[in-house]
C-alpha cells in the first residue's frame, strides 16, 4: 500500500461503485441513493463527484452504460460492470482492507 493520498480517495469511490454494480445494474441517481442508504447517510456523493467517477470508470472500461426506457416512459442511463470491472473488485477490496486495518492499528479507531 504505497503511494496513498489522492489514489486512496479516488479508489474509495471506485470500490463502492464497483461493489454496488456487482449486485445489479443501476442508474446514477440510484447509485447515489444506495450509497447514502447503505452507509446510513454517512457517505453522500453529490452529482459533481458521482458522475465524474462513473465517467472515469467508463473510460477505463470497468463499466458500460446504456439507455433504457421504463414502463412509465422515463429514459434512464444504466450502468453495469464489464468483465474487466469485475476483475478490479477483489484487488481494490484487498487494498482497502489493508489500509483500514493499518489505520485502525495506528489511530485506534476501534476505541473511538
Amino acid at each position, binding site marked *: 500500500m504505497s503511494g496513498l493520498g489522492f489514489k486512496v480517495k479516488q479508489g474509495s469511490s471506485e470500490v463502492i461503485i464497483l461493489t454496488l454494480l456487482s449486485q445489479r445494474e443501476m442508474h446514477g441517481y440510484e447509485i447515489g441513493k444506495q450509497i447514502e442508504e447503505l452507509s446510513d447517510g454517512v*457517505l453522500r456523493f*453529490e*452529482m459533481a*463527484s458521482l*458522475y*465524474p467517477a462513473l465517467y472515469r470508470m467508463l*473510460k477505463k472500461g470497468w463499466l458500460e452504460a446504456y439507455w433504457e426506457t421504463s414502463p412509465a416512459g422515463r429514459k434512464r442511463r444504466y450502468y453495469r460492470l464489464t468483465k474487466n470491472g469485475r476483475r478490479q473488485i477483489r484487488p481494490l477490496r484487498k487494498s482497502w482492507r489493508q489500509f483500514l486495518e493499518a489505520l485502525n492499528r495506528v489511530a485506534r479507531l476501534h476505541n473511538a
Partner: protein
Amino acid sequence: MHDFRKLVAPDRKQNPREREIVDELACHLEEMYMRFRRNGASEKTAFAAVSAAGKRLGPTVRKLRWEQEGGFRTWLRAVLVPGLVLACFYAVCNFALGVVSWQNPTLRREADLALVSVAFGFCASSFSRELGGRTTHRLWASAIVISFQAIAECIMIFLVIPMELIRNAQYFSEVLAPALLRILLWDIVTPAMALVIGSLISMYAFPPALRAVPLTETPA
C-alpha cells in the same frame, strides 16, 4: 412537467457532445424532484430544491465532456491551447527582456530569463489544470511555452551549421560551435528546466482537479 434539461444547461448553446450528459443529469434531477414530491414537499419547494442543485452543474457538464473526449481533443485543449497562448506572451516577454537588459552582464540576463520562465511554467501548468489537464498535460503545456524560441533557434542552427561548414570548417570549430552551445544552454536548456520547475511548483500548489473524488462529500 418541468424541463430539467434547462436546469442543467440554462444559458449554454447546446453542444452536441454534451447532449447525452445533459440528458443524464436532467434525469438525475427529475428523480430528485420526484423523491421530494413523494416525501410530501410541495411542487414549488421541490422544484426550488432541485433548481438549487441544478445551478451548480455547469462545471460538472464540462468536466464530464472532457472525461469523455479522446486523447487528441484533450491534448488540444489542455496542452496546445495553454502552451501556445503562453508561448506568444513568452516570446514578447523574452524580446522585452532582451531590450531592457541588454547592457546587464550575461549571467544576470540569464537569471532574469530563468525567473520569467519559472513564472511562465507555473502559469501554463495552472492554465492547463483549469482546462482539465492532468500531470503529463501540465508538464507538456509548460514545455510548449518555449516552442517558438526552440523552433526558431533549431532552424537557425540547422541552417547555419551546414552553410558554415561548407564555407569555412575552421571558423565553425573556433567561433560558431561555442556560440551555438551557449545558445542551446542559455536559451533552450536553462529556460526549459525553469519552465518545468514552474510547472512542478504549480502541481504542488494546485494538485490534479478531476481525479480527486473525496470519500465523504458532506457528512450527514
